[in-house]
């Protein structure tokens, strides 16, 4: 019994890692653009589809497919960023909501139109089980957890030490001042957005072997799950996002096992509503860091 719960918790940490990598990009984008990116899950989907395409049509190995998925998403993110996201800087909140909803519709349905709406089999990845601390776990799951840790450590370092990271912090604190001291706000916004989209894509490619199937509508669900995470984490707060993602992942996993699988996807929004009503600033500090 105890080991069963423990297994569910580990599973929860894996899916929490997936959410964390997606959500951290979304929360950073919020920090800089002051807009919720309702299209964020679509970049997750694009990354997955890029990798699937590379494996299915060109028979490339999985590591190469990861790169292709992320790069393809980056290219699309550059275009979207240039034409849409940069315009959102400093606009009223409704603008961001509507524009990113529009982007989500376009991306999602273009993929469905091109590749069809059905489920596709994703054949890459490392699905061999390994044994750690006495219980078995697919290699891919271990990889996801490792990548998640690397991503967060990397982001912490970048935000603290690099020029770009400092600029991002500055923009998220005060846009007007940045323009005065010569920080190119639209440029920072664009780079943050591309980085966020790439992280989402990376998360998508890493998860695909675990989920096995890919389909055009998968991004929407990820967006819906990421929204609660970034709100709970306190919008713009990187560490808070990490913990919120883990909590959601573990909670989902436990609910799926002990309450019912069909309730899994509702956990996020149900907790979100409770959190919003109880602590509108999120669980982890009111102060938006980043």
């Amino acid at each position, binding site marked *: 019994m105890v080991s069963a719960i423990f297994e569910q918790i580990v599973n929860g940490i894996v899916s929490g890692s997936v959410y964390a990598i997606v959500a951290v990009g979304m929360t950073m984008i919020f920090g800089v653009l002051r*807009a*919720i990116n309702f299209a964020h899950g679509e970049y997750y989907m694009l990354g997955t589809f890029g990798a699937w395409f590379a494996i299915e049509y060109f028979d490339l190995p999985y590591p190469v497919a990861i790169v292709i998925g992320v790069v393809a998403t980056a290219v699309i993110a550059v275009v979207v960023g240039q034409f*849409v996201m940069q*315009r959102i800087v400093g606009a*009223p*909140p*409704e*603008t*961001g*909501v*509507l*524009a990113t*909803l*529009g*982007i*989500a*519709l*376009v*991306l*999602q*349905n*273009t993929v*469905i*139109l091109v590749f069809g*709406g059905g489920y596709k089999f994703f054949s890459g990845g490392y699905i061999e089980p390994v044994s750690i601390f006495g219980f078995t776990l697919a290699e891919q799951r271990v990889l996801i957890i490792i990548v998640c840790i690397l991503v967060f450590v990397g982001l912490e370092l970048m935000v603290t030490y690099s020029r770009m990271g400092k600029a991002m912090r500055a923009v998220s604190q005060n846009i007007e001042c940045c323009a005065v001291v010569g920080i190119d706000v639209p440029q920072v916004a664009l780079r943050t957005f591309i980085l966020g989209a790439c992280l989402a894509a990376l998360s998508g490619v890493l998860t695909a072997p675990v989920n096995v199937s890919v389909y055009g509508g998968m991004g*929407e669900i990820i967006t*819906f799950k990421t*929204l609660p995470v970034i*709100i709970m984490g306190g919008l713009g707060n990187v560490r808070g996002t990490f913990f919120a993602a883990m909590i959601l992942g573990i909670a989902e996993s436990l609910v799926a096992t002990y309450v*019912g699988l*069909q*309730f899994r*996807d*509702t956990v996020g*929004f*149900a907790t*979100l*509503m409770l959190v*919003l*009503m109880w602590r*509108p600033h999120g669980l982890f500090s009111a102060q938006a860091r980043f």
Partner: protein
Amino acid sequence: MSPNDLSLPAPRRDLRLPFGAALAVAACLAPLFLGNYALHAIIIALIFLLPAHGLNLLVGYTGLLSLAQAAFFGIGAYTSGLMAVRFGTPFYLNFLAAGLLAAAIALPLGIPALRLRATSFVMCTLGFVIIGQAIAKNWISLTRGDMGLSGIPKPYFALGPASFTISGTTSFYYLVLVIAVMATLAAYLIVRSAAGRNMVAIRENETLAESVGIPTWRYKLVVFMISAAFAGLGGSVYAHYLTVVSPLTFQMYYSTTMLIIVLGGGAGTISGVVFGSLLFVGLSEALRVAPEVRMIAYGFCLLALVFWFPKGFAPLIDRFWSFLRERK
């Protein structure tokens, strides 16, 4: 303007009335000229007009962006469908119950949600749709889950001993036309009332509105409920038209469509919403556009509306009205 104009306005031919009359005649005679499919497209457009009017009161007049319309649309559809299937109640009862229940559910949802600021409110309303879908899927004893409700009867009326059923497309068209006209009239009366003016005041500047004594929060709650009622009524007609309801009624697709109608037609105008629903829903339905293509088009429409045409078609419609009014 010549000096003469100052004394008495020159006699003008106000063409608004003739135009309205022509429109009314055209609407009444449409089934004579249109095939069943075109009529179907118009019926769908007119059904969507109801939740769109509700959303317009919220977004266009009160300035609250909401994605919850699909949730109330779904609640209305299920209420109506369940009543008809389980109890065999006549259409008008189901219809009214759908509107009332949607409004009643909007009350406890709106109380906490409306305390949130713009973006959080939007997300909360999105949550209503997702949770609504989950309930429709999982409360199987009531909703039959993913199978959905089927065999919802076409609207039938029972008044005393007489009863009749609306089954054909043409007769359904007239039923929906009457409902849509009534809904439009209701929306018009609301925005023209003192409350409508207060709603605009809240949209323009909430603190200033407060300072002249307008209880902004209570107004928002009431408008949220009214908009839910409109969506519920629309959902009821939708259920009786399609005769099936499934958890997919709780879908972002519907919320997005209603947003496009309102923003595209011109938020904050009644005629714009009517135009928007005929254009964005009616036309795309009539052209048998694939749903993906339609959603892509909607996506681009949203982007265009946000960045280039924040008023949608409203300025064009305005110009058309003043053209009718001031033509000599």
